[in-house]
């Protein structure tokens, strides 16, 4: 009864407050010392290596398809030679980071949410806490840092594969050499294209890890809550990715393209 009386916005505020608390305890534990290197490395492997295939295939197809889609329009404008440049700029600035982050949200955030959620359900997190060990440091700090580190790496790899996919597509129709294509791609890119793109993927990765951990760590103690944790981790992380992306665009344009 009492629960129904609480209006929705208060619950929402409460959830935001909870995330704030979780965020600050994450930071406290980040600088506490006794960093769990081996767990961090293991997580990097789990998160990075196991998502590589998925990221690779998707990026390849995205690059390929984008060229096929762009070609007619640019052809109409007589700007066919702009194809590599258009692909490189759009892929590296926007499409690559966002698509790959969304894929990682689906694969990694849900994985972390489910893993920590089931550790919660089976009292493993409680056991760690009650033994005097620090589950935040062991489980959360390592995972959040690992995603913040691996998502940018995956994005860079994905960018390269995407551009390669574009090359293959272009090669079907126009006879362009690999070296010419890549020179065109790279020469069209400035440092100011790469840097903000990489920086924002760090935030994407952070959001993915953080949301996954938060949802899993704070899930309820029923078996169904594991699924819920995984599910809401994906939804919330995806939402965050778009919010961060929108902010990043604003900040970048203020800083670099005034």
């Amino acid at each position, binding site marked *: *009864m*009492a*629960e129904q009386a609480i209006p929705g916005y208060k619950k929402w505020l409460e959830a935001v407050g909870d995330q704030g608390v979780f965020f600050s305890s994450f930071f406290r534990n980040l600088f506490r010392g*006794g960093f769990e290197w081996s767990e961090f490395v293991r997580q990097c492997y789990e998160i990075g290596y196991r998502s590589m295939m998925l990221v690779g295939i998707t990026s390849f197809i995205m690059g390929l398809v984008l060229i096929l889609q762009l070609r007619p329009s640019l052809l109409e404008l007589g700007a066919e030679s702009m194809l590599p440049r258009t692909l490189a700029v759009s892929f590296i600035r926007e499409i690559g980071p966002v698509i790959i982050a969304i894929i990682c949200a689906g694969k990694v955030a849900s994985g972390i949410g489910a*893993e920590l959620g089931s*550790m919660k359900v*089976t*009292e*493993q997190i*409680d*056991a*760690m*806490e*009650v*033994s*005097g*060990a*620090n589950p935040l440091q*062991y489980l959360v700090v390592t995972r959040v840092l690992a995603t913040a580190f691996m998502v940018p790496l995956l994005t860079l790899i994905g960018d390269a594969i995407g551009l390669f996919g574009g090359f293959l597509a272009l090669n079907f129709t126009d006879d362009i050499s690999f070296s010419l294509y890549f020179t065109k791609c790279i020469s069209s890119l400035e440092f100011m294209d790469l840097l903000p793109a990489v920086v924002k993927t760090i935030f994407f990765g952070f959001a993915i890890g953080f949301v996954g951990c938060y949802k899993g760590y704070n899930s309820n103690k029923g078996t169904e809550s594991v699924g819920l944790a995984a599910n809401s981790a994906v939804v919330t992380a995806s939402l965050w990715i778009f919010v961060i992306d929108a902010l990043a665009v604003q900040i970048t344009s203020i800083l670099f393209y005034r």
Partner: protein
Amino acid sequence: MEAAETDIKLKKPEEKGEVVVNIAHVAKSFGNKDVLKDINLQLKRGENVVVLGKSGQGKSVTIQCIVGMLTPDKGTVKVFGNDVAQMGEEQIKELRIKIGFLFQSGALYDSMTVRENMEFPLTRIKKMTDQAEIDKLVEEALDGVGLKDAIDKMPSDLSGGMRKRAGLARTLIMQPEIMLYDEPTTGLDPITSREISELILRMQEKYKTSSIIITHDMECARITADRIVIMNDGEYIAEGSYEELENSEDEFIRSFFNQTK
């Protein structure tokens, strides 16, 4: 939260028979459900107290209050004379190192092998670095619960009983001063149950561990208990030795003991 403690640094308890856990007038509710109403319990050094009670009565909640996982709504829980509710993060941590908590499920970390599970508290909490010493402790602890052969297995490859024993070994490896056992023998065969009960007794003799043992297993209660309390409806309604309670006038109390015969 009455009688605010000024001196909340953990004292070093030495005297015999001294009270290590003092639960006074503790009440706790979840939502509008009053789980604990008025719980009073004193655990003395070196003593084994068995808590009996029907399922869902709040036995687990009580011991979670002792380690500060839950905070009582009313009343105080003092461990080694210090109010748990008043402790800061560091003091809680210090306290938890001295208390072993065996979870109902065993709560093994399932991403690690049994060996890594055992090493976890040693390297993380005791900050031990000497691998030979760690190996020795791990083997000893696993030997104590008869799991030496399972040392390199993953928890998912163990049976429920083995997981529970491994969980027990992981707790005992820290040689805690107070042990809280949440149904240590539930789901185990009679022989293993008996071994666990005897292990609890050995821990008490060897390390002067004080224990609270929640159980539904009367054999375990008979073997381990110095004192038994019976919980019903958020309160302890009876207290005494196994024999006293077994021959109680009260039908409800006797009903706990009938299951063995």
